[in-house]
């Protein structure tokens, strides 16, 4: 499938990355090149092959339902761009 400029802008929007028209043109060319590389997969017959996500085919470990984390809010919020009263500050979303 080939991409066009509006696809690139839609992808950028989904990825929450601002992109201007000039950069979108460059991205279109480069993403199309990468998708061309990826396209090679479509010629492979994968009927009946199970998808693989971990080489050891391990299952998720379970642990006892006990509290393991301590309260480190102040420490973790010390690296935040904007906090007040223990809360993260963001622009208003509800009028």
């Amino acid at each position, binding site marked *: 499938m080939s991409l066009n400029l509006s696809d690139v802008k839609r992808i950028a929007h989904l990825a929450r990355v601002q992109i201007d028209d000039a950069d979108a043109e460059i991205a279109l060319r480069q993403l199309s090149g990468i998708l061309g*590389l990826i396209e090679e997969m479509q010629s492979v017959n*994968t009927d009946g092959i199970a998808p693989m996500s971990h080489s*050891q085919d*391990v299952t998720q470990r379970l642990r006892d339902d006990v509290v393991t984390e301590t309260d480190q809010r102040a420490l973790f919020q010390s690296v935040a761009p904007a906090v007040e009263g223990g809360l993260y500050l963001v622009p208003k979303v509800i009028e």
Partner: protein
Amino acid sequence: MINKSLKELAALLAAKQISSVELTREFLARIARLNPTINAFVTLDEERTLAQARAADERIAKGEAAPLTGIPIAQKDIFAAHGWRTTCGSRMLENFIAPYDAHIVQEFDRAGAVNLGRTNMDEFAMGSSNETSHYGKVRNPWDVERVPGGSSGGSAAAVAARMCPAATGTDTGGSIRQPASLCGLSGLKPTYGVCSRYGLVAFASSLDQAGPMAKSAEDLALMMNVMAGFDPRDSTSLPREKEDYARDLGKSLAGLRIGLPREYFAEGLDSGVAQVVQNAIAEYRKLGAQIVEISLPNNKLSIPVYYVLAPAEASSNLARFDGVRYGYRAPEYADLNDMYCKTRAQGFGAEVKRRIMIGTYVLSAGYYDAYYLKAQKIRRLIAQDFVEAFKHCDVIMGPTAPGTAFKFGEKTADPVQMYLEDLYTIAVNLAGLPGMSIPAGFAGNLPVGLQIIGNYFDEAKMLNIGHALQQQTDWHLRLPEGV
């Protein structure tokens, strides 16, 4: 001093012929002299480093030293280290002081090693040349007009220029092995799940694996003894007994079956690199190994599969960088969505944005089956190639990278050209196997790495195979001019 093995340095420390503070100062002085050119380190903190060295000296004086106590180790800037700036090569984390330690950093601290500083890398480990770092390119000590490889290029250049005795790296598609090859050092990517990913800034979680980078295979073994081990905080960490990775060093290689994949010696391989690799294989033959021709028929699919899976996982992992909880936030924005979009546009570099967009696309509604699921299925075919191959051989050998170190800018115009750098390394990550690169000689004046791929959990055997060559050759001890 600078060319001594970790074992030799430990012996000097134990015999009180040198203190950890003296040793650390020597490497800090080398960094001060060489780093302005090489740019291998992005953050240094002499006070913190020397405090660790003094603590190590006290520990040695009390007779409580472990094998790496007092030895300065450089950390790739991808591992969170409490109180250290941890940038991952990105503007996004330019002012991020990690509030906790990665598992591996904890293990080095426990061993009494000295954290020498933070090494430069491709942004979020996405790159094969170190040119995507927000903190400037790293130069290859063998030729400062050429790249050191990537993404662990800072660690590789630091070891190659002997600015540190050893360093840590991470490898998602070749990021330990390829820079090790291009800079003439030894590097090991362990079996997926052997080293904890806790506190490692995530790129592609099903592929990321930490590992050591050092002069020799023996040094890698000592590093692995510290780095490897089960950690419940990493959901994919494998619960296994602690093992001694140096246990096989010195064993005979008689009867070892070395598989040479014909796909690794086909079109795309530089002839000078091919010659060096063949010479190394001839050495192994002299050591009693047998050569078996094998095939990895799906190897060429590893690049397309990787460039679906890795960006998909990256787009998901990097969604956390939103300018809210930590990291960069754009100075001006209209509303919340605008804040996200501007923060990410300004905080991420071009390659990272490219991969996030590819990942977003292949995971988007209507394309998931055609791309992501398809790639996961072919991933199994690639892994099965290795299962089949290991029925006929004990280890696989070939080149680590298709060429030697290339010039800055040579492969930046076309991302696809850069991606082909990892033609021989990516399949190993997809299969989750251990892979290693050791110096095998030179093509022109540039180092060439031999790749050794083992079966799952065969690291100790591979390290001995690397060690055996390093008993016969001195490629790993050669120094670039001017260091």
